[in-house]
Each structure stands twice: as structure tokens, then as C-alpha cells.
């Protein structure tokens, strides 16, 4: 188990906002914004796997992509190894790219159908290293060995592979430049269960061997429990809860985390039927028009009056456990008053 004490922060995300403008009318004026990621802060320690969970459309993938600056974030700061990347110019960003890579959700769509496997895995090498063609081929073979692909496949095209093999190609490409940090954007969602296990084990194995740090985005809570060291729960573009895996799964604090965890299917049919589930009512509100106060107040089973007025701040309620909920800030009236002040100001 990963221990965060004494570990160094590799990625620091502070107040990250990613708003997509909504244009309407004849003149295509900006009339609003989809707040896909709204004021999200978290840290990732070197060598850990941070799980990022939440339901569809809550901004997980957008968050992961914004962290690598595949989108231009609206505001906020992202630091990788102490270097600011949220507003870095193209050249500086290009220098930093080798340190951070991404594994994509759909292995079919993330590989160029017109390039051979060698071309795909070699692309980062072509961009960032001055290797000769021979050295590059050697490195490509090395990477293919590392992810368990036969070297004979080097001249084949992506459509000739199965889903799992394609995902391995995607992982090999991400590894090509010896990155420190990899964002795994639902890398297993498009694969069937037995292949999921293979790919996840490969990712874990590579982490042990190469000392990688992952941001593992998934909606599969059991898989996150298996692979992650710490977990961030997102709801409607905001962080609901951050905590170490075991604590969070055994004793969820935020009502949304509770509901989410109680929705995990139980393998035992008896306990499946008897499970005391928290069933949420209603739908997720539109991120273009989030509710006033707490994002979750419209569906929260324990919503109070204050929840509809004030947006709760993310606060550390137990060591290492951060929650954005008035249930916990209310006990310390100080925090609530502070929150009221900041909102009023």
C-alpha cells in the first residue's frame, strides 16, 4: 500500500476551472457556459495512483484532459514537478510533454488507422528525441516487449488487433518517452472483463517497474478500489470527496459517495437483494445551470436549508480526508461562518 507521508507532490491542481462557452442567437454571442470542471483542486503524489470517479458527464475526462492541457483551462493552476503548465506557451509545454502522457478510453479511436504500430509507438520518439532510425526501431521493440506485444506486429495496422492489444499499443505509445505521470482516461471501459484484468495488471506491473504516477479515471468503482491508492469523487464538475482508498470505501463521508458506493453491484445474490441502498431521486442537473448552493442539494437525501444557499468548501475533516459537505462543516460553526463570509463578500 502506498504511503503518502514523505512522498513528494508530483502534480498540483489548484482551482482548476474548465468552462465551455455556449453560443446562441444570430451573432453567436456567448450566453452562458457549461461548467464541466468548476473549481477543482487536488494533489497527486509521486508514485501513487489517484482514482477519479463519478457518474457520466460529471467532468472526469474533461478534468483529466485539462490537467494535460489538451484543453485550454478557463482558470486555475496546474503544476507538474513544480512547473506551471496551465498557461505555459506552446514551446515550454512541448518540452514538458514527455513527462506527462495519456492512455485513452477508446483504443480504436485513439490510434491513427493509417499508421503502423511502429509508426504509432515511434511518433513520440520522432517528436522528442534525436534517435536514428535504427535506435528508434530498437526502442519500439523494447516497448512492445514491455507491454507484451509480439515484435512481428510492428508493421501491422491498428484494425488488425483486438481491443486489448490495441490498448497495449496505446500504453506503449504513452510509455515511449519515459513519462513520470500518465493520465489513464477510462482505459478499460471499452474492453471486456477478462481483458480489463490483463490491462489493469499490466498498468500495475509497469507502475512497479518504472515508478509511474497515474491519474486513473473510471466509473468502475470496483476497479478503482483495486488499483487506486487515493480516490477523488466528482459530482457535476466539483470535488465531493477526496480520501485514501480504504477509508473512503469503508466509511464514505459525503452523501453522494455513500449513494455511489451503495450502487456497486454485489456478487452475492442474497446480499444483493437485501442491500440497503441509497437510491438517488431525480437527474443530474445541467452543468450549464447548476443549482444554487451545494451542487448535490437537489438530490441529496439529507439536504439541509444551508445546502441550498451556500456552496460548501472542500475541508479536511479527518487526516487525509477532504469533503465538501455542510454536514461536516456545520459541526464546526466557525467554518460555516467563514464560508458564509466568503460567499457574501
Amino acid at each position, binding site marked *: 500500500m502506498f504511503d503518502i507521508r514523505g512522498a513528494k507532490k508530483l502534480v498540483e491542481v489548484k482551482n482548476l476551472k474548465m468552462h465551455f462557452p455556449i453560443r446562441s442567437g444570430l451573432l453567436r454571442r456567448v450566453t452562458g457556459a457549461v461548467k464541466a470542471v468548476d473549481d477543482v483542486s487536488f494533489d497527486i503524489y509521486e508514485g501513487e495512483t489517484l482514482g477519479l470517479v463519478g457518474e457520466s458527464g460529471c467532468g472526469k475526462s474533461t478534468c483529466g484532459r485539462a490537467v494535460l492541457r489538451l484543453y485550454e483551462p478557463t482558470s486555475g493552476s496546474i503544476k507538474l514537478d513544480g512547473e506551471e503548465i496551465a498557461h505555459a506557451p*506552446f514551446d515550454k509545454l512541448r518540452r514538458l510533454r514527455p513527462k506527462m502522457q495519456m492512455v485513452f478510453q477508446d483504443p480504436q479511436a485513439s490510434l491513427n488507422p493509417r499508421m503502423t504500430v511502429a509508426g504509432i509507438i515511434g511518433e513520440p520518439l520522432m517528436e522528442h528525441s534525436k534517435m536514428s532510425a535504427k535506435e528508434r526501431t530498437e526502442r519500439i521493440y523494447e516497448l512492445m516487449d514491455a507491454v507484451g506485444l509480439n515484435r512481428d506486429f510492428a508493421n501491422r495496422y491498428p*484494425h488488425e488487433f483486438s481491443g486489448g492489444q490495441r490498448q497495449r499499443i496505446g500504453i506503449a505509445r504513452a510509455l515511449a518517452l519515459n513519462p513520470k505521470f500518465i493520465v489513464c482516461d477510462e482505459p478499460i471501459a471499452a474492453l471486456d472483463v477478462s481483458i480489463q484484468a490483463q490491462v489493469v495488471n499490466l498498468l500495475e506491473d509497469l507502475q512497479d517497474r518504472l515508478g509511474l504516477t497515474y491519474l486513473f479515471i473510471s466509473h468502475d468503482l470496483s476497479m478503482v478500489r483495486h488499483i487506486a491508492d487515493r480516490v477523488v469523487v466528482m459530482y457535476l464538475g466539483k470535488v465531493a470527496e477526496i480520501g485514501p482508498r480504504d477509508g473512503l470505501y469503508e466509511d464514505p463521508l459525503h452523501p453522494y459517495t455513500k449513494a455511489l458506493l451503495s450502487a456497486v453491484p454485489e456478487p452475492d445474490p442474497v446480499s444483493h437483494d437485501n442491500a440497503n441502498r441509497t437510491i438517488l431521486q431525480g437527474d443530474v442537473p445541467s452543468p450549464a445551470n447548476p443549482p444554487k448552493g451545494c451542487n448535490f442539494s437537489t438530490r441529496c437525501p439529507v439536504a439541509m436549508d444551508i445546502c441550498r444557499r451556500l456552496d460548501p468548501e472542500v475541508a479536511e475533516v479527518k487526516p487525509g480526508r477532504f469533503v465538501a459537505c455542510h454536514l461536516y462543516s456545520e459541526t464546526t460553526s466557525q467554518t460555516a461562518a467563514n464560508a458564509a463570509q466568503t460567499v457574501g463578500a
Partner: protein
Amino acid sequence: MTDTTDQKASAPVMEFQTYRAARNQWWDVWDQFKTHKGALFGLGFFIFMLLFVFVGPLIWTMDPQFIDIRARNAGSSLAHPLGTDQLGRDTLARMMAGGQTSIAVGLTAMLLALFLGTLIGVLAGYFRKIDGLLMRTTDLFLALPLLPLLLVIIMLYRDNLRAAFGPEGGIFVLIVVVIGATSWMQTARVVRGDVLAIKEREFVLAARSIGTPPHRMITRHLLPNVMSPIMVSATLGIANAIITESALSFLGLGFPSDFPTWGRLLFDATDWLTQNPERVIWPGLAISLTVLSVNYIGDGLRDALDPRIRGR
């Protein structure tokens, strides 16, 4: 959960295997191209046509401009295998000379239109900022009445270009530029549409996460994936250019009237249709079959360049 020890176990074994050397991908393309019968036939015919118009005059050395007034309107004979025209010029020699011009105009104008169309389409599709400007320009060109425009351009610039490149060279440059500059719009629109779609695919995002700069993104990821519509435009473009050149010659605005092109031969022959119908058939056949063969080549090439179809 199963462990993935299989690849760890097999890794040492793999060290002893010898690996197939990378095969040049163009061999795969050729292999696939060969399986397309129509394309192979088209390629054969196109090569035959090129030999006919460029090597033919070395064998059939009769001057296409030579007037033998006593042999006018002759049918096919040993001296004139395809007969003669109303002034007694040899049709075979004129077919060869005319083919040189027509094929050269077709290929050059197509390349120009393709270059312009692809450039504008890719830029408009990839760079959002200039999309509006470029596509409105495209619409503007589409809205222009082409024939009057061509007439005006040719009227205005014919003499200047003739002075610069000589009578035939000047007209050649003019016609190629005029045809190229007025037929790139379809290509630009189709390419832009495809680029817009491909730009949103994850592999482009993956390339961006590697830090690929825009120009290499375009050459490495976008262009190969919009190859199909470009190929189709190219083959249709050749046909279009040959036919437009014929139309211009037909209107008397193309090459000088004594300078043979397939379009001009066709135009001259229409007056004599009742007396010498074969004089219409030869250039007509040459134009249609060349266009058809190029279309088949394009079809085969498009399939051969797509790795998803290759090997099936």
C-alpha cells in the same frame, strides 16, 4: 483475477527469434492495387495512352500541321490510318499531338485544383479562426458564373501571357491556371468536412498530448486520413479539366485554331459529322476512355491506400 504472466514468460523466448525486416509499405499498396482488376486495366490503358501521345509521334512522324489539300476528307487508308480532316491533315498525327496537350492540361490543372482545394480545405477545417473567411471565399467562387469569368480572364491576360511564354505556352499556362483556379471548391469543401470530423478523433488528441506541432499534425494525421475524398476529386478533376479545355477550345477561346487538342478535334469534326462520322468518334473515344481509365486508377489507389481495406 488472472495474472498476465504469459507475456513475461514468453519474453525470453522471443529474444531468440529473428524478426522480419520491415517491408516497404508501398509493396503492400501495390499488392492491393493489383487485386483491383479495373484499376489494373485502367493503369494499362493510361500507360498505353501516354505512350501513344508521347512516343507515338516518334514512330508516326507525319507533321500534324501538314496540309495535303488533295487528300482532304479521306477515309482510313494506309497513308492515313485514321483518315484526314477537311484540310487534308492526318488525323492520327493530330490525335497524338492533341493528346499531349489534353493530357498535360488535364493533369496539371487537376494538380493545381487539388493543391488549392486541399490546402484551403485543411486550413479551414483545422484552424477555426480562418474557417469562416476561407469557406466564404469558397462560396464566393462557387457563386461566380464560370464561363463568363473564363472569357473575361482569357480576354484580359491572353496577350500578356503569349508575350511571356510564346503563343502555345502562354495559352497553356492560362488555361491550366484558369481551370485549376475555378475547380478547387468541391475538393475544399469535402476536405474541410472530413478534417472537421477527423480533428475530433482521439488519435489527434493523442498526437496533441505528445506535443505534435500543427504542421506535422496535418501532414501525419489529417492528410493521410482524407486521402479518399482527395483521390476521388483528383480523378474526377482530370476528367473535368479535359472537358473544360474542350469546351474552351469549342468556344474558340482555348488554343489557336490550328493547334490540335482533343477538344478542338471534336469541335472541328462536328461540322463534318454526316460525311465523316469517325472523325468525331476518335477524339471522343480518346477523351472518354482516358477519363474512365483515370477514374478506375483513382478508385484502385484509394482502396490500396486504405490499410483497413488492404489485404481483404
